[in-house]
């Protein structure tokens, strides 16, 4: 007789019942082979036993037979819908597939049938944290604490759960209760120290500063909190918040410890009522005095000097910046310009820096072909030239920059920075090919330098040389990786993925571009998945403070500029695909020879891997492959399947979703959101996006194009979506585009207001095209960007070039020719027939010999 409450279909005779327990044991010990055998024995007699089926499925999954395993588990669940084991197994498998939503549902089912199973409860808590179901998390943590109050971590876990759910007060109560009952804490216990610090943090967040300070002080005194830096930082902050007279000393103590921490100086100053980011005339001089004092106290520290430069103005600035510049140029600090660039926002400081640096240069100048005078340091001269080159290029004076660099290179031809920056200046001038060549020269000077190598790869990508870039990247990737690209992807190199995606896009290879952007998306998905293990680990190890920071960071993960960029570009490709589905098929036909070769190579490599796998001895059956689904093999090497996948707009919307909140200050993000929303016929969302963009920059040219686009789409709708939507859209739309104006008038008015802006001219031409103006009219509109009084930026000129190409305009070459005198150093506007040759020249095969003829050869 089965025990009461167990369904007949689950009950097993005693022999099989023992066997089943063995299966569980074998699984726990990862003796997969034995477990499998035992499960098979049971199933021979009871082929429909759900729990055994599930266990067999789980074991098979661990052995790498994932599909088969999953099938068995599903079957098992169907046979026994009320078994917690079945649901638990199902949940485990789903979690392994990173399907957290479904896994949590399975765990919830499992808990219905076994309410107090610690393992299931704990896993469920992790899933709830991952999914940010904080209220449910509190429930789960409560249950766990009730079941095992003697476990310290259960208390802390509950406090953290309350904290996350926003109930900080309750978190405090839990901690207080815990501290009352905790016993036998050894001295210098790291875990208890972390818990107490967390308690202090909770009190601080609650605004109970006196209590926080009291707890901190007693715990510090009794050596219960042992993190000395944390004690000092908390203390200084709390004392400041309390307005205590001891605060000053506390901040001073921190600065004594680390005289190069900007935060400490800011804390010190703000304690004296000085906000360094919002100075008044009065606080400015106070701040400066304080910082000068510190600079004297800590002559080796850079922070007080650098902060003083931010604070000082006029003659004081000049007096401070001169020795700052001099000492760093003497030392040869390559990053000096980057360090000072932020000061350029103030024109006065920019001018002072220029004059100081030039005066310095004048005092250092000497000939390149004779010994430098003994009073001058020749390297200081080179670094000063380098600094000034960066200065002038930053201000758009590229020719001056090149001149300075050439002087420096003639003087010291072995400094890679000079070549790199020369490349960068050329890039800024619109010569990506020359740029790549110069950076290549820098690389050849020191092949060991990973930074130079990465730069070179990046510049080759900028010049459209994808294969050639992979060649140099490959010099530093793992040799046993399937390919350099694959290794860089596995290493989550966002720099590489972004640059290659952009390069593919510029080359018109939408499929590969989308594939690489998708790889970026996956990197961020991985970042998100990676936090999972910490839900258990951090609570177990009591590293709660840093854990809470981690969760906060994860919540804003996709505000990362590389994600935002990838999302916007990918959505643009997908929108383009929606507008012209023929792109998907034409792209795959237009595979270049090189790509075909690459495809063949990839296939060959794949075959080899398969063969090797076959050759591998079959003894690996007991090897645990884990539950996490292994990455699927790349069956889409050229990205064409990705490009041809259905529902581009839905995919684009998914890309952009995080940007609504995480990139709310980015106008291009709103424009991208609009482009997708309006095509999905989500008119309210589309208009909202435009309104957001409008508040960010009402004059934005890209916004102008969308306003025209939206108004036109909206007014030509045969059928308004619904009364409600129409009522919501129409009035807000009239605020953006006045009703009384025709769109043609609206467009010409915009042009009148911004007639000297190249990007505005492009925007009005694009709007004309939307308004179905004849091509000739659009062309002549856009050509006015070449007028002498128009401020035409390089990016705009490039955008106009591709706009004309898109129009299939016969005047493309005319426009490119018109750009040439405008952008003297640019090669981007060279006749298109010359581009392949330019591209070829972008690679420096070897260090260039000087052009002096050398007849004498020594072997």
């Amino acid at each position, binding site marked *: 007789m089965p025990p009461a409450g167990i369904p007949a279909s689950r009950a097993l005779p005693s022999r099989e019942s023992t066997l089943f327990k063995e299966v569980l044991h074998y699984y726990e010990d990862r003796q997969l082979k034995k477990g499998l055998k035992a499960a098979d024995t049971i199933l021979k007699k009871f082929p429909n036993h759900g729990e055994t089926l599930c266990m067999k499925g789980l074991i098979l999954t661990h052995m790498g037979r994932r599909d088969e395993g999953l099938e068995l588990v599903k079957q098992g669940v169907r046979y026994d819908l009320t078994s917690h084991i079945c649901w638990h197994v199902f949940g485990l498998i789903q979690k392994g597939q990173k399907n957290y939503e479904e896994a949590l549902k399975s765990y919830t089912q499992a808990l219905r049938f076994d309410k107090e199973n610690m393992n299931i409860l704990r896993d469920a808590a992790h899933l709830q944290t991952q999914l940010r179901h904080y209220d449910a998390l509190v429930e789960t943590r409560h249950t766990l604490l009730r079941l095992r109050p003697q476990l310290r971590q259960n208390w802390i876990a509950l406090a953290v759960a309350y904290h996350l759910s926003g109930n900080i007060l309750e978190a405090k109560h839990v901690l207080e209760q815990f501290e009352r009952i905790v016993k036998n804490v050894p001295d210098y216990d790291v875990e208890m120290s972390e818990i107490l610090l967390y308690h202090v943090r909770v009190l601080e967040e609650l605004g109970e500063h006196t209590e926080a300070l009291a707890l901190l002080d007693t715990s510090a005194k009794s050596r219960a909190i042992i993190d000395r830096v944390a004690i000092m930082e908390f203390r200084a902050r709390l004392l400041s918040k309390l307005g205590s007279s001891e605060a000053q000393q506390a901040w001073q103590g921190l600065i004594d410890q680390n005289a190069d921490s900007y935060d400490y100086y800011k804390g010190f100053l703000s304690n004296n009522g000085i906000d360094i980011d919002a100075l008044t005339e009065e606080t400015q001089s106070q701040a400066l005095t304080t910082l000068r004092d510190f600079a004297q106290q800590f002559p080796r520290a850079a922070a007080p000097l650098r902060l003083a430069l931010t604070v000082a103005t006029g003659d004081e600035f000049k007096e401070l910046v001169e020795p700052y510049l001099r000492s760093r140029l003497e030392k*040869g600090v390559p990053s000096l310009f980057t360090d000072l660039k932020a000061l350029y926002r103030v024109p006065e400081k920019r001018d002072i820096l220029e004059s100081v640096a030039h005066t310095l240069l004048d005092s250092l100048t*000497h*000939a*390149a*072909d*004779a*010994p*430098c005078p*003994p009073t001058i*340091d*020749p*390297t200081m*001269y*080179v670094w000063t030239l380098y600094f000034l080159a960066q200065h002038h290029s930053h201000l758009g004076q590229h020719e001056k920059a090149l001149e300075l660099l050439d002087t420096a290179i003639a*003087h*010291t*031809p*072995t*400094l890679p920075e000079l070549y790199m920056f020369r490349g960068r200046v050329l890039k800024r001038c619109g010569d990506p090919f020359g740029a790549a060549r110069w950076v290549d020269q820098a690389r*050849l*000077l*020191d*092949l*060991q330098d990973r930074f130079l190598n990465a730069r070179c790869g990046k510049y080759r990508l900028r010049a459209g040389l994808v294969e050639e870039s992979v060649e140099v990247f490959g010099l530093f990737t793992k040799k046993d990786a399937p390919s350099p690209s694959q290794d860089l992807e596995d290493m989550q190199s966002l720099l590489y993925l972004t640059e290659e995606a952009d390069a593919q896009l510029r080359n018109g290879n939408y499929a590969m571009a989308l594939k690489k952007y998708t790889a970026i998306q996956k990197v961020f998905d991985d970042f998100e998945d990676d936090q999972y293990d910490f839900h258990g680990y951090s609570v177990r190890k009591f590293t709660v403070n840093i854990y809470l920071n981690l969760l906060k960071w994860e919540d804003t993960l996709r505000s990362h500029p590389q994600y935002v960029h990838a999302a916007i570009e990918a959505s643009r490709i997908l929108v383009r695909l929606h507008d012209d589905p023929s792109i998907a098929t034409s792209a795959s036909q237009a595979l270049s020879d090189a790509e075909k070769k690459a495809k063949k190579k990839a296939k060959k490599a794949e075959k080899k891997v398969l063969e090797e796998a076959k050759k591998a001895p079959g003894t690996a059956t007991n090897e645990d492959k884990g539950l996490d689904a292994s990455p699927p093999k790349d069956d889409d090497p050229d990205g064409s399947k990705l490009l041809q996948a259905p529902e581009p707009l839905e995919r684009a919307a998914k890309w952009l979703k995080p940007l609504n909140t995480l990139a709310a200050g980015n106008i291009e993000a709103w424009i991208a959101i609009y482009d997708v929303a309006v095509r999905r016929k989500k008119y309210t969302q589309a208009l909202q996006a435009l309104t957001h963009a409008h508040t960010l920059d009402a004059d934005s040219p890209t916004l102008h194009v969308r306003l025209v686009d939206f108004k036109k789409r909206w007014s030509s709708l045969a059928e308004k979506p619904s009364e409600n939507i129409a009522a919501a859209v129409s009035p807000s739309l009239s605020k953006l585009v006045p009703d009384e104006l025709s769109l043609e008038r609206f467009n010409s008015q915009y042009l009148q207001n911004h007639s000297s802006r190249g990007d505005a001219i492009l925007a009005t031409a694009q709007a004309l095209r939307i308004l179905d103006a004849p091509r000739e009219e659009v062309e002549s509109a856009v050509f006015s960007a070449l007028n002498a009084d128009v401020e035409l930026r390089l990016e705009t000129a490039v955008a106009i070039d591709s706009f004309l190409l898109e129009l299939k305009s016969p005047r493309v070459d005319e426009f490119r020719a018109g750009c040439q005198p405008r952008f003297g150093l640019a090669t981007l506007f060279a006749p298109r027939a010359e581009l392949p040759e330019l591209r070829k020249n972008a690679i420096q095969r*070897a*260090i*260039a*010999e*000087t052009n*002096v003829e*050398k*007849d*004498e*050869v*020594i*072997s």
Partner: protein
Amino acid sequence: MSDSRPTPTRVSFAAVTPNNLGTVRKLNSVLFPIKYSEKFYSDIVQPDLEDFCQLIYYNDIPVGTMCCRVEVKDGVAKLYLMTLAVLAPYRSRGIGSQSLKHLVDTAAAHAKPKISAIYLHVQVSNEDAKRFYARHGFTEVGLYENYYKKITPHDAWILQRDIQPAAAAEAT
């Protein structure tokens, strides 16, 4: 004579390797009126020569090179100094002297093979170079007629300095 020079405090050395060969090529291309063959470059990166083929740094910037080969004749090993030069603006600060001293010290400390002497060729028009080497104990031991084929004058002095093994030098 050289007392007024600034003290060369920031001179350092690093072996020539395939990775920094580009820098050597760059320096050679501006320093010498001579083109060096690919064989020259493949020889100087041989691991057993790394003590004698060095880049010279001043304030962490490569400003010169010094490359030798070992010639063994009748069981006696000599170091032949193929190139030693410093970029023009960096001359007259004792970098060359320091480099040569470094080379002599290294040669003296070298055990396998023992180095008995260092010698080199100097174009007969180059009095400055001759004086420089004379200051460091090199003497003229011969004249190589028509050493240079294309540049004039064609002849070169052979300058040489004997090397006392390090231990012996200390003993005396």
